[in-house]
């Protein structure tokens, strides 16, 4: 029998209203590199959070057996004490502290009188840096080194805790090719030293390169685990997306009219680092009555594109031309964008979309107060009537429009956001992750609303991480990868496999497109 370092047995984790993990079983052999694949929201991160004690023992069902012992973890500290270390996608380093300080944060090397022995800490840190192949001084501040090197510091930090099982959550998502290669090499080296790794990744090429086996998770369930010899891209993709697409989406008969939005050569750079291209020469069109999707992995530049278009809400050095109804428009501010008939519902309603401490009525009117202005004052009664109409037509479930939006469910909050934008009477609606964090029933309602808007002749641009969603509601889909449009497929030709191929297409080096 195989020597398993880790067995997760029938793990089930429920959040209010959602079963995030259902009877998940994961067996990892000592010394192997295991890849875990799955779409966004499939449950990968939840599973790793259970394993690392972020969700403590008792908040889930099932057992974690690590080195033959059943674990009852209550915090990350517990899991680290056992030798399980997780490195999150968003690095957890403190930018103003040095590398050594970060490595030994909350694990300080103490000398006499319980004071920190900086001499020893720095020299220990230096040894760890050598081990991960990072040529930087241990006293360098984190903010002075790049993301790739920061990732190595995270690994050095893990090594300082005598790690036995290293979990990396999309470790190369933010890295360039050279840094990625280096990191993958390092993981292989650690394997030689007897460290087991679990690597969550979207990038199929790197999985093929380093993984000894792959487990695919979908909808909170393990689909299958493949040994190295069995791994093929097709099989992974099929496992990742292979679900029944029937009846999740309302019927939609497109009646497509004139072109309403055209964007040409749209380019935007990172707001803090203007040399980094985030959106690269994007060209798209949307016609009246058409629902157009943008598919892309996290970090592909989907939201960055939408927000830079919407009144330069994101980015620096933005260039390109935008046409609405064939007329070129200037979109230098959000107010201008709204005036020209654009609307953008953000991917994060709570942070960017709603005033949660205010009521439904005032949230709906927020973007169009001028419409309610009479002799310099906002007409309260009219505002109430308008909000009430939207409450009924959008089926917002709240006792009155005076209910605070912070108390509504995700689906109802999203309906308020949509109402706000409908009231601004746009020509084109950009919907960024319109159903994120919404339960299945409410999703169906949102899709119905989207269809209705298209039928009214609006142009709709949907950004989504969920391929089935795009395939279920769109008429045409663009694939975006590393800031570029890498493919455009009419719905008849769009398949998950085809889209994933375009979405994972690397930035064309010169000559390849």
């Amino acid at each position: 029998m195989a020597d398993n370092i880790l067995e997760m047995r029938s793990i089930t984790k429920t959040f209010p209203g959602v079963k995030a993990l259902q009877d998940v079983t994961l067996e990892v052999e000592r010394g192997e590199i295991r890849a875990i694949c799955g779409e966004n929201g499939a449950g990968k991160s939840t599973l790793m959070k259970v394993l690392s004690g972020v969700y403590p023992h008792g908040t889930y069902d099932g057992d974690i057996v690590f080195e033959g012992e059943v674990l009852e973890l209550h915090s990350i500290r517990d899991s680290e004490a056992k030798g399980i270390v997780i490195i999150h996608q968003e690095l957890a380093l403190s930018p103003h502290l040095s590398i050594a300080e970060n490595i030994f944060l909350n694990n300080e090397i103490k000398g006499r009188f319980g004071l920190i022995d900086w001499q020893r800490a720095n020299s220990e840190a230096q040894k760890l840096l050598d081990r991960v192949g990072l040529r930087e001084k241990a006293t360098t501040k984190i903010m002075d080194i790049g993301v790739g090197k920061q990732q190595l510091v995270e690994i050095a930090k893990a090594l300082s805790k005598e790690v036995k099982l290293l979990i990396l959550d999309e470790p190369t998502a933010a890295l360039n090719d050279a840094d990625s290669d280096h990191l993958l090499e390092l993981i292989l080296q650690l394997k030689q030293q007897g460290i087991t790794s679990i690597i969550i990744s979207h990038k199929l090429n790197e999985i093929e390169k380093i993984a000894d086996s792959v487990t695919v998770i979908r909808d909170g369930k393990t689909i299958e685990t493949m040994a190295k010899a069995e791994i093929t891209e097709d099989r992974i993709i099929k496992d990742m997306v292979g679900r029944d697409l029937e009846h999740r989406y309302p019927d939609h008969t497109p009646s497509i009219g004139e072109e309403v939005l055209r964007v040409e050569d749209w380019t935007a750079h990172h707001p803090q680092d203007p040399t980094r291209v985030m959106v690269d020469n994007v060209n798209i069109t949307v016609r009246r009555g058409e629902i157009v999707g943008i598919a892309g992995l996290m970090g592909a530049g989907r939201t960055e594109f939408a927000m830079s278009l919407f009144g330069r809400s994101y980015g620096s050095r933005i260039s390109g031309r935008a046409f609405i109804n064939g007329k070129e428009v200037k979109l230098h501010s959000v107010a201008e964008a709204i005036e020209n008939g654009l609307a953008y519902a953000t991917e994060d309603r709570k942070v960017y979309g709603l005033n949660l401490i205010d009521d439904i009525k005032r949230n709906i009117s927020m973007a169009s107060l001028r419409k309610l202005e009479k002799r310099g004052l906002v007409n309260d009664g009219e505002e109430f009537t308008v909000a009430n109409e939207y409450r009924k037509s959008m089926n917002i479930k709240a006792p009155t429009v005076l209910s605070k939006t912070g108390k509504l469910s995700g689906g109802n909050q999203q309906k308020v956001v949509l109402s706000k934008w409908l009231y601004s009477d746009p020509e084109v609606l950009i919907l960024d992750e319109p159903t994120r964090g919404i339960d299945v029933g409410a999703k169906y309602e949102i899709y119905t609303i989207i269809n209705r808007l298209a039928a009214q002749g609006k142009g709709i641009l949907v950004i989504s991480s969920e391929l089935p969603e795009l395939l279920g509601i769109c008429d045409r889909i663009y694939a975006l990868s590393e800031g570029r449009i890498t493919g455009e497929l009419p719905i008849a030709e769009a398949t998950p496999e085809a889209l994933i191929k375009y979405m994972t297409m690397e930035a064309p080096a010169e000559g390849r497109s």
Partner: protein
Amino acid sequence: MTNTELRPGGGPTGSEEIGPPQNKVTSAISHVLADLGKNGIFVALVLVVALFAVLTISARGDSILLRPQNISNLIVQNGYILILAIGMVLVIVAGHIDLSVGSVAAFIGAISGVFAVKMDLPWWIAIILSLAIGALVGAWQGFWIAYVGIPAFIVTLAGMLIFRGLALVVLGNSNIGSFPAEYRAIGNGFLEFLPIDLGPRSSIDLVTLGIGLIAIVALVVQQIRTRVGRQKYGQDVEPFGWFIAKLVLIAAAIAFFAYALSAAKGIPVTLIILAVLVLIYSTVANRSVFGRHIYAIGGNRHAAELSGIKTRSVDFWLFVNMGVLAALAGLVFTARLNLAGPKAGDGFELEAISAAFIGGAAVQGGVGTVSGAIIGGLIIGVLNNGMSIMGIGIEWQQAVKGLVLLLAVAFDVFNKRRSGGR
């Protein structure tokens, strides 16, 4: 989501429970309680007044706090803090703070002394120029906050030092005094038209009473119109009995207040200024697009920006406005003392900020009302006044005021947590 069955074409079937139907009495009671909760600050003012009314009962058997002369003083002594509180609450709603208002008030007071006394300009020109300079001061601070992006705390902390310093520079190590009578009136003047003698050392002004009556009628008409308006648009209204009871209570309070003023020296000019400001600013805050934008920004700045609200411009004009109101407060204070001195305005910012917070403004922004800030300011004023009458020393007054501020905000936090608003 234990039920994974999909309902194509149907949408969710489970309709929201809105709660069991209540009978009239329980719904009326719950309405009154909710109303008291919402108007907790008003109830607090009534309690504070009642407490000190009892604590300051004199040997003659009447309450010193409620003597006409004292009520008149209360307004005049707190007018400038209340003016500041109006601007401050808007700044706080937008998620900022202004620590400089005391220094700005001192600076403008000094400048007005130069205009009105040293240069001997007509009083009204001096006032207009002073307010304009207040606007410039606000524009200066607003520029750094809105367009450079420096936190208001820092900018106005710097402003606190800068304008205190400039006040000293303008005064040149001395005081400026002997302002023209018209100028003095804004801090010290009273309007009395038809005093009727009611025996020795006692008279009553009919015009003041008349204005009180007009205020009551205006209030009643306005309240009824609002209620009818809400009903017309199908909004909920409070039970009729409670509505009437509230109106009667408020009308009685105004009547008593008008009587007190008419029996003292008449209507203080400061009160007229204040009344006009409260009317204007309440309307701006509640019903103008600009005011709505302030609340939207304070509630969620990102969402406001992404809704096309020009957040920078709103921030900028808020501070310009604060500058003008700080200038006005400086003028009223200088006029009252008939003296522009280097210590003027000391600590005003803290009283104005306290007033806003006691009046229900939220530290995170997005919440707060002009009327709340005024009532908060009055609570501080009554505390000051009542404790002074009782002969409590300044040291204890400070401590008590600090405690009241803490308790008021704690109460607010507690209330929100209980209602699940987090």
